């Protein structure tokens, strides 16, 4: 499966076998060399087999090997033409995403009070396996239907937190009865928790501004502190996807669908099973929106306690919250005509262009913020959606993993990684020192190159670069 350079940072995988459309990977030559090191490119071709897929099976510059879909995969299916929805195109961590808060605080504030800030965050942000969520379990049912709105009503966060959240923090159509009792049992004690693996809360400094006007609209100012949170729907989402995959195997046979990888199991969007999946996905998404909303509230409380300042005086305002594991029904122009598509983004971020009606009023003119986190020791990026995006309004979701966990562990111990980060001036509060080794910065691709290629390929433009100074790691 050899992709060939077809210009504008696009590599094309021609149709073969059962592929209904070609594959297209957005990458620079160095990123494509890395993408070829595992089976991600084969997975792009596999996704091209999905019934109803239009234009191409797409992959973002941070593409790497996943399960079923590649991480960084985008696929849109034509709903009215029998297009399918695939849980594998969303993943187990349904609505995993990133939330960014900007502040009026400066690097000087962190240098003076950083120890206290990190100690408060360390004590307040639950992480690791299993239970330990901030929010009481009795909020769960309301949140599964009303998402972050329900958390707001319970006293977490602010109205603006909803305004600046994708979907305004509520995925319509969700509700407790769409997910299994097992999913509710598994996630019930985890509301308001990071989890582990690559999830984190980082204190960052706005390091470089590329578009001053856009950055100002987003609330970002050079030299100020920001807080970035990366997490998802925890055990509730994981169990929901597992449950749905079990249902979808036999359903796929009933619909006469065959796919090259069982993890790509799918059913028509306009089928009973398809509607049930989308409702279950919305339910788990509501958990995730609320989860990040609650963690952001707790981060404000941590800063407030550390600086002995009321939380509303810190200016820790939401820049935006984006999902990077979701399937959404969106209207896009295909072959000159608007079509309702089911757009799967598996490790990819929605990137609406300026003027899109779904964007909040105060940033509609500049486009949607696209948050691209790095990897503890490296930068994170704020991009913005642009017109004529060639990937159904999608962009990268992170640096993209480069190295297996085993290979990363063989290179250095968790203690060594911690020392390196501290030598670089980054204060680190890991849930497990040992697990730091698997998440070391060198296990990921060059996030600066990923952001550059997003801009060069017309996926999203660069607004600001942020660098970490404090990391609370899951």
């Amino acid at each position: 499966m050899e992709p060939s350079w077809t210009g504008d940072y696009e590599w094309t995988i021609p149709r073969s076998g059962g592929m209904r459309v070609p594959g297209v990977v957005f990458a620079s030559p160095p990123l494509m060399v890395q993408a070829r090191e595992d089976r991600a490119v084969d997975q792009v071709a596999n996704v091209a087999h999905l019934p109803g897929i239009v234009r191409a099976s797409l992959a973002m510059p941070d593409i790497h090997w996943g399960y079923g879909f590649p991480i960084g995969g985008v696929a849109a299916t034509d709903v009215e033409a029998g297009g399918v929805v695939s849980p594998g195109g969303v993943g187990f961590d349904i609505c995993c995403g990133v939330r960014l808060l900007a502040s009026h605080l400066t690097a000087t504030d962190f240098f003076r009070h950083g120890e206290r800030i990190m100690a408060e965050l360390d004590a307040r942000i639950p992480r690791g396996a299993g239970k330990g969520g901030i929010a009481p379990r009795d909020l769960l049912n309301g949140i599964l239907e009303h998402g972050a709105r329900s958390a707001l009503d319970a006293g977490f966060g602010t109205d603006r937190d909803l305004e600046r959240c994708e979907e305004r923090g509520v995925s319509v159509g969700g509700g407790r009865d769409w997910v299994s009792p097992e999913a509710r049992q598994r996630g019930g004690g985890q509301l308001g928790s990071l989890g582990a693996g690559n999830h984190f809360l980082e204190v960052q400094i706005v390091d470089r501004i590329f578009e001053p006007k856009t950055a100002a609209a987003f609330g970002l100012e050079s030299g100020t502190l920001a807080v970035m949170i990366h997490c998802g729907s925890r055990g509730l989402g994981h169990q929901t996807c597992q449950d749905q995959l079990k249902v979808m195997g036999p359903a796929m046979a009933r619909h006469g669908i065959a796919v090259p990888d069982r993890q790509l199991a799918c059913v028509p969007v306009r089928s009973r099973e398809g509607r049930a999946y989308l409702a279950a996905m919305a339910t788990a998404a509501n958990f995730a929106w609320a989860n990040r909303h609650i963690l952001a509230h707790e981060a404000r409380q941590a800063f407030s306690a550390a600086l002995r300042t009321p939380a509303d005086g810190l200016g820790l305002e939401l820049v935006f919250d984006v999902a990077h594991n979701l399937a959404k029904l969106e209207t896009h122009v295909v072959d000159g005509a608007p079509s309702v598509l089911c757009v799967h983004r598996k490790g990819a971020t929605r990137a609406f262009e300026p003027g899109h009606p779904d964007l909040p009023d105060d940033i509609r003119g500049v486009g949607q913020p696209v948050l691209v986190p790095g990897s503890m020791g490296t930068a994170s990026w704020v991009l913005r959606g642009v017109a004529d995006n060639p990937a159904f309004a999608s962009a990268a979701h992170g640096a993209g993993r480069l190295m297996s966990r085993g290979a990363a562990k063989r290179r250095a111990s968790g203690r060594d990684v911690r020392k390196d980060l501290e030598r670089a001036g980054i204060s680190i509060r890991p849930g497990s020192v040992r697990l730091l080794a698997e998440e070391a910065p060198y296990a990921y691709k060059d996030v600066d190159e990923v952001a550059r290629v997003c801009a060069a390929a017309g996926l999203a433009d660069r607004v600001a670069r942020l660098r970490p100074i404090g990391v609370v790691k899951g």
Partner: protein
Amino acid sequence: MTNRYSIVSHTADTGIETTADTLADAIGNAAFAMFDLMYDLSSIPAETAIAFTTVAASPEDLLVDVLSELLLRSESDDVVFSAIAVRESRMRAAVEASGATTVGRDLRGPPIKAITYHELRCEPVAGGWMVRVIFDV
């Protein structure tokens, strides 16, 4: 104890392969591996025990069902299972597992979120059964 399985390298996630004389033992090995990737099982006492049965249409489905149920019980009850016995007849598995709380116990690998179907294998081979499974972490 890691000689009961080998690790399959994967860029983002983690996989294992194992073989055994019987389907039941191969599934048991895979279950052991799932928890062994997360915790040091050498020091886990048998403080709590569970038992369940599950029926599936194929060996692959039986494998996924057993692993999923164990993961669900583990995460819901904050328990890590270190001793897992599986009996199988006609695609019906009876599982008994024992272990102890995860509270206060260090992870040695990232928590496993789910059992994927990607490159899943559970099939007879010369002399027994082999299992290959990729976990989402």
